[in-house]
């Protein structure tokens, strides 16, 4: 069956079963490989994208469930104000190591910062604990989110 999906401002038509997870449409059908496969069960967060601005695990999100939602991926997150701040903080604070989980980390952190310009440590725990990093960059991720939040003016 054919589905129409809106990704990063463009409309794509894909011919797959309705229960196909969005992750595989992105990676294998459309060739957008920035979104990563980690577990297939929403346990690790590597596949995180934004659906209408909400951080969502694309590995368990079926294509038929998307309707007219707007999907944003790592390839375009830098075009959002929160995404750009997070990416810059990630670079300034030298967060990445192997980097494989970082697309998902950045998508989760960007959604957090967009909805909560000055997150507390508990807010960061809540938003980020679904994202596993085997390289253990957690300490720097927390610091980078705080760094990005500092660039938000007070009362944002």
């Amino acid at each position: 069956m054919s589905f129409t999906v809106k990704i990063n401002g463009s409309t794509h038509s894909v011919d797959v079963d309705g229960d196909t997870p969005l992750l595989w449409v992105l990676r294998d059908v459309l060739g957008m490989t920035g979104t990563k496969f980690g577990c297939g069960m929403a346990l690790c967060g590597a596949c995180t994208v934004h659906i209408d601005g909400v951080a969502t695990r694309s590995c368990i999100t079926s294509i038929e469930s998307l309707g007219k939602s707007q999907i944003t991926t790592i390839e375009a997150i830098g075009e959002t104000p929160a995404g750009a701040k997070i990416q810059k903080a990630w670079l300034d604070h030298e967060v990445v190591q192997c980097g494989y989980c970082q697309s998902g980390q950045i998508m989760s952190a960007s959604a957090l910062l967009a909805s909560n310009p000055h997150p507390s440590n508990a807010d960061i725990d809540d938003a980020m604990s679904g994202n596993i990093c085997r390289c253990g960059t957690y300490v720097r991720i927390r610091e980078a989110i705080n760094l990005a939040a500092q660039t938000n003016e007070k009362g944002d």
Partner: protein
Amino acid sequence: MIPDRIAFRASDTNLSRRSFLGTSAAIGGGLILSLNLPLGQSKAANSDSFAPNAFIRIGSDGQVVLTMPYVEMGQGTYTSIPMLIAEELDVSLKQVRLEHAPPNEKLYANPLLGVQATGNSNAMRGAWKPLREAGATARMMLVAAAAKRWGVDAKSCRAQDGEVIHVPTGRRLKYGEVVAEAAHMPVPGNVTLKSPGDFKLIGTRAKRLDAPAKVNGTALYGIDARPAGVKIATLAQSPVFGGRVKSVDATAAKAVKGVRQIVRLDDAVAVVADHMGAAKKGLAALKIEWDDGQHAKLGTEEIARELEQATLGSGAVAQNTGDADKAMASATTKVEASYQMPFLAHATMEPMNCTVHFRKDECEIWIGSQAMARLQAMAAKAAGLPVEKVNVHNHLIGGGFGRRLEADGAVRAVEIAKHVDGPVKVVWTREEDIQHDMYRPYWFDRIAAGLDDKGRPVAWKNRFAGSSVIARWLPPAFKDGVDPDSTEGAIDLVYDLPNFHVEFVRVEPPGIPTAFWRSVGPSHNVFVTESFIDELAAAAKQDAVAYRRALLDKSPRAKAVLDLAAEKAGWGQALPKGRGRGVSLQFAFGSWLAQVAEVEVSKEGAVRIRRVVCAMDCGTVVNPDTVQAQLQSGIIFGATAALYGEITLKNGRVEQTNFDAYQMLRMNEAPSIEVHIVKSSEPPGGMGETGTSAIVPAIANAIYAATGKRLRKMPVDASLLKQA
């Protein structure tokens, strides 16, 4: 894997430069990690480019391309190795572009291992001299070429930021302008390396060169390879190691939209499809009957029992000093204990994968590998082709930890690709990845010490049993029943132990393959020795830091890191009830490290690691930010294993399947980590694995301090810590 002391072909460290000289630009084929642009294909060097050795190529446009003999899996190699070359070549990191080295053991072997592999935290140790010499050689030839063109003495010229400057006149030539002549300059017989005082890059917090591509989704890992027309496959392998496929009913699988083909092998079935969604759906629809084979009833307990039994016999002597039996007999106090470490999976974030295009007389492979030449050889064997007909493209690695030193995945992918027309990317589901890993060995240790009337250890005896990964991976290094990896951290201890006897009993477990796992031998041995020395301190009723310190007169660098960590951690200061501090001290991978962990244990027995303070002496620091990052990383990796890591077998099957049962430390559990680095001008030591082995005993010792309970079996069992 191989500590320096029995390094293979170690003399090649000096010879390597000369053997590389004269090699022209035989480097094409690898993918480029571009620093300014998204990834692209390697350009063949044009005829007037300058390639004085296998690592450096400078085009007439001035572009400096560095070919990376070590792979980037997060440890920062793609920044620290270029820093070495750029320092001596006198270019800025902004001027360089990186390529992954192709498989070529002659050109790209790690001088400390003798094989082309990235592991054992020894990239920097192996590269420190030869790659600076490679940069210096190129610089001298460029300077000579410019001097010749100007008709001046080369001694009156110097290099700076990619240019040659004639000092008396201020004339300048960019490197790109003299590459054609430089290529014909004689290769200097002796190169003088910069003295540390002249370093501009080494020692600085240079930014990671791979970071920009990793924050915007353009970094390419093996799993992102998409050769034209590629199909996606996923697989089910015999749930019991050594089992076979008995029958397959693929009727329902073939009816799944997007499924193209079912490939049946002896011990696995693969579903080939247009995309992974269809492949997984097809796999779920397969009805496979397995013949479980001889390990159908195997359980972890059986393996542990066999290892325990083995420690009651005798093993190969790994180290013997003095007379431990005699000293033990006359000791005032005898302390005995046994320790166990579980099987562990690697669980790299990037699941195992390999893309293969098999043709009649050649084979092309896309993968992220820590050991390219080994992979090429094994893939060629599986393909039934000569090695030179197998073209391997390496990629960034989404977590290695030793898993990608193995080529089993590539072999499997080749077996599948032989049945597929066109390229196929084989992707392991997380379940397959965890249940068909090659695991850190299970170990059983029996250890004893005798103390004199002052509590000082006068005898030390340790016999441990487990798999020797080296015996399979690098057979020549397994000699007389011992190997340098299995024993690292159990022998050559920093402590003054006059009567010392350590034996290793090699026991290969049935029905479960073993492999290197981040921090390898020390991941086991440092836990045992540092837990046991803590037990001795307790038996002697002495402070754990003071007790260690009194045994360190022959190890000043060890004493210095212990003192520094203790001071920074506030060792000895009171803590609230339920909290405790534990210390560990290790010399491994050529570096000295002390850690103090502070834990909190709840009434229910839940352990929370609050804070870790470490002091590191890793010799010359190439990039202090990398040292800090690797310690943070290693500590989280080891803490994950200490709190959660355990792979168990039941009925021959690995019981854990995904991150629900094989748990990882997460953001809300991450401790604060403080890193203190000791200044040193000694040659660099290894970094990437040190934090992992040192944190496990620090946690166990902290739990003891908090609760009085000594945990001798990892991972932490909260039920043992629950307050009645």
